């Protein structure tokens, strides 16, 4: 089978009616970093979303404050496919330095918007070219010279509004939202946008087929980034201590936490019912979290790969000494500094086995903002229930980009504070810190300050017996380690189970997790259109649910799809299912960009062709 090379053409069908392509295109905006284009892009995205067009926005930015090339990519799709695509139907070339490359990324027959004077080599003959008077219009705007490059970005908003038919009222509403209703800013930006729209309507003749039409496809949905959703989830989960150290792409989680908590989490006396501390490094951040969790706080941190490395000694400590903690890892590309502003799912094994010795951590794997919110509060319940550090693996795409989502469900269950003994409990029943009283591997604990004589115990990372006494007794050590494994089995009852779509008679299945969900979902439909049906299991926690056994068993081949080079989840699952290894294939890829439906589709078709070839021989 021959399929399109994703680097030359987007695959999938366009919605064409009367020569028009309605609500089905990607826009690529290329700018130099730090030129202030983010406002323009977010306004465009929000206006499209509020017109009812399913959309997503991805910021592809360099590790740099000013000058290096950056791209913003908006995808609109009436059918709801909003994963990122390699190529765009419409490109806005605000960065002369990358213009030649950017032109090459436009779909055949696509649109190219460029600042009137800036681009001299409009090399391709198959495109629709629209010049934009960015210089002239920004000069006419009532702003200082230094603000002109910023205001120039509003020009493409206006020209695009005209070319695509984006409603100016929605653009104005988006500006109001963006500028928190600050009238002067709204009016200033709007005046440039309307001037550009006006100019375009008088000077441009539309020759391309792409248009936006109002729709009801986003009704009831909201748009938010995963880090904001996670912050809200944590606040509604009763977060009391947060300690962190700045690192992209996790910083905005801490920022949003402060932003929301200061209104939502004040006591009657106006004091804080939480503490957010910017630590001196990730060692101190996790140290505070572990100390706070031990003393009864719902404690969390947020970090990314390098911070995860630094936290590993404490993660092992928390596992062994059995201390609740929540660690959000907003993954980026490693190893080391790697590609710090690019997305990956490369910390699966680093988190799952964080720490020396025999450790295995509970990891939650949110796949959309609603799950970031849910796991935001649920992670505390799980951590306190199991008395162990819980990792939550998000990533840069999910954490920092705007995603459409269903509204968040307010938690129905009360907070689960786990097995904590009161003074009375201790006085009537005694207390053995690490004794497996309930035969579920989870012991009871007391909190410092419990007044009952006999409530105190000695927490240590060294060998200990059921009474938390120092012990090097081989029996004590082994019993303890076995109980910790038993606790992980118990954990399944508290962990989010996979979301599974079983396709009747499908030969193949996919296992994925996290931010690749939209791409996998789209790829399944593209494959179905090619006659290849597939089932899909989206994993939402580690250790993996035992239900994966059945899923793998009922398919001839299961592809584990993930955004890293080594196929980390594939390795983890193989270890869990040693007898099914031949059925488990890895589809792993990472170049710093989000995984695409194109790549998945093409790779699956290639692999399947290989498999079929092998079988025929």
């Amino acid at each position: 089978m021959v399929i399109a090379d994703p680097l030359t053409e987007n695959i999938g069908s366009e919605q064409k009616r009367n020569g028009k392509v309605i609500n089905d295109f990607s826009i690529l905006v290329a700018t130099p970093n730090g030129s202030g284009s983010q406002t323009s892009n977010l306004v465009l995205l929000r206006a499209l979303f509020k017109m009812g067009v399913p959309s997503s926005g991805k910021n592809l930015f360099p590790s740099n404050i000013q000058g290096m090339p950056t791209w913003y990519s908006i995808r609109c799709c009436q059918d709801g496919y909003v994963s990122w695509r390699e190529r765009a139907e419409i490109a806005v070339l605000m960065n002369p330095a990358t213009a030649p490359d950017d032109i090459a990324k436009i779909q055949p027959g696509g649109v190219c918007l460029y600042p009137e004077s800036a681009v001299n080599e409009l090399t391709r003959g198959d495109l629709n070219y629209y010049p934009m008077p960015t210089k002239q219009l920004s000069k006419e705007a009532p702003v200082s010279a230094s603000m002109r490059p910023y205001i120039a970005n509003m020009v493409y908003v206006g020209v695009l509004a005209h070319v695509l038919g984006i409603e100016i009222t929605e653009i104005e509403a988006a500006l109001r939202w963006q500028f928190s209703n600050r009238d002067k800013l709204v009016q200033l930006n709007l005046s440039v946008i309307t001037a550009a729209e006006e100019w375009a309507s008088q000077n441009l003749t539309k020759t391309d087929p792409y248009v936006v039409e109002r729709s009801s496809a986003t009704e009831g949905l909201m748009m938010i980034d995963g880090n904001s959703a996670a912050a809200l989830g944590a606040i509604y989960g009763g977060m009391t201590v947060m300690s962190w150290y700045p690192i992209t792409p996790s910083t905005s989680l801490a920022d949003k936490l402060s932003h929301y908590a200061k209104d939502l989490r004040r006591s009657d006396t106006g004091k804080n019912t939480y503490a957010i501390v910017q630590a001196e490094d990730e060692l101190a951040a996790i140290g505070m979290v572990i100390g706070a969790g031990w003393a009864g706080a719902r404690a969390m941190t947020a970090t990314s790969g390098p911070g995860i490395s630094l936290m590993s000694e404490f993660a092992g400590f928390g596992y062994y000494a059995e201390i609740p903690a929540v660690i959000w890892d907003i993954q980026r590309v490693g190893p080391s500094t790697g590609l710090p502003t690019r997305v990956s799912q490369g910390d699966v094994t680093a988190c799952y086995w964080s720490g020396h010795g025999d450790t295995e951590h509970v990891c939650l794997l949110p796949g959309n903002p609603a799950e970031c919110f849910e796991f935001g509060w649920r992670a505390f319940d799980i951590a306190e229930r199991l008395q162990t550090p819980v990792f939550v693996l998000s990533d840069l795409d999910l954490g920092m980009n705007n995603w459409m989502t269903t509204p968040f469900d307010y938690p129905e269950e009360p907070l689960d504070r786990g097995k904590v003994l009161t003074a009375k409990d201790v006085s009537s029943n005694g207390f053995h810190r690490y004794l497996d009283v309930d035969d579920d591997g989870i012991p009871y604990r007391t909190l410092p300050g419990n007044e009952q004589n006999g409530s105190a115990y000695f927490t240590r990372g060294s060998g200990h017996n059921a009474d938390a006494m120092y012990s090097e007794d081989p029996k004590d050590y082994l019993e303890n380690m076995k109980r910790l494994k038993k606790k992980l089995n118990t954990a399944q009852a508290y962990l989010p189970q996979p979301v599974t779509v079983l396709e009747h008679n499908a030969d193949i299945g996919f296992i994925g997790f996290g931010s690749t969900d939209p791409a996998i979902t789209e790829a399944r439909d593209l494959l179905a259109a090619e006659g290849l049906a597939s089932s899909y299991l989206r994993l939402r926690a580690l250790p993996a649910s035992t239900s994966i056994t059945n899923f793998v068993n009922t398919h001839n081949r299961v592809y584990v799809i993930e955004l890293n080079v080594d196929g980390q989840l594939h390795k983890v699952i193989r270890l869990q299912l040693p007898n099914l290894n031949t059925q488990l294939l890895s589809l792993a890829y990472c170049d710093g960009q989000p995984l695409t439906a194109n790549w998945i589709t093409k790779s699956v078709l290639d692999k399947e062709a290989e498999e079929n070839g092998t079988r025929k021989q």
Partner: protein
Amino acid sequence: MARGNNNTNSIGLTKTDYRGKDTTLCAGCGHISIGSQIITTAFELGLQPEKIIKISGIGCSSKSPAYFLSRSFAFNALHGRMPSVASGAMLANRHLIAIGISGDGDTGSIGLGQFKHAMRRNTPMVYIVENNGVYGLTKGQFSATADEGQELKYYGTNELPPMDLCLEAIVSDCGFVARSFAGDPKQVRPLLKAAISYNGTALLDIVSPCVAFNNAADSTKGYDWARDNDTPLHDISYIPLHEEITADYEPGTTSSVTLHDGSSIILRKVDENYDPTSRTTALRTLEDAKEKNMLLTGLLYYNPRRASLVESERLTDTALSHLSETELRPSEESLKTIMTNL
């Protein structure tokens, strides 16, 4: 001292209630003597043992909390990371009393960053460095406080200058900086009591000889030298709240400092009057002492004006660990309001 009867303290406990497990430290180790002063202090102050948290790093010093205050909660953390754990615990429950135990290796090397930042943050805790100039637990390597030019049988000559942890604390804006000697319990005790009453990080850098690896006659961390060169800045007495000063002091010979909880300390001059509230005096005095090769002990620096971590975080009076569900989880309406804006 307010006592129930001869054997019990103000809350009706006996000294036995404050003891720990049998020690496994070497006989004669300075850390043992510091532990007994902690026992006596907590007993005499009538502290509820379960309200005390003993937080430590890794080392012989850091394992010593097993040998005092068995009825208190303990957290033997990671090497050099005691301060962050203590900070987290105090944020979780501001009503606890934190006693941090560390060593010169635990604090002066691997934990120097956390040491300074805990002080900068002013975590409410007593921070005790049991300073022996070596890594005891790993068998006698030089630590960052070892004397320059010092010879050790196995590790040879130390070429590097010693770090003065009191100087480091003062420049990090620690508001309670004291130095003492494990062989001088009479001084350690009132300093400990004052440190517990202090609202913020109180550093006690206590020379605590390691009899196994660093107790030669010429070692500034050994018993002989410390005893011969101990130069107290003042005689210190601790006066608990509501207790009258009974001793008669000659006018002009004493100064007193009132602590956060209303208790006070009386400093009686030895040679000259020393003003512990002046940072520049403290720094100069420590530099002078180093030049004169003296072990200058006492309350070196005192500043009551800084807000503690609990205050700067504007925490509610109720411990965060004990807030109710209604205080922890905002209403469903508030979530709806936020979502209508998204």
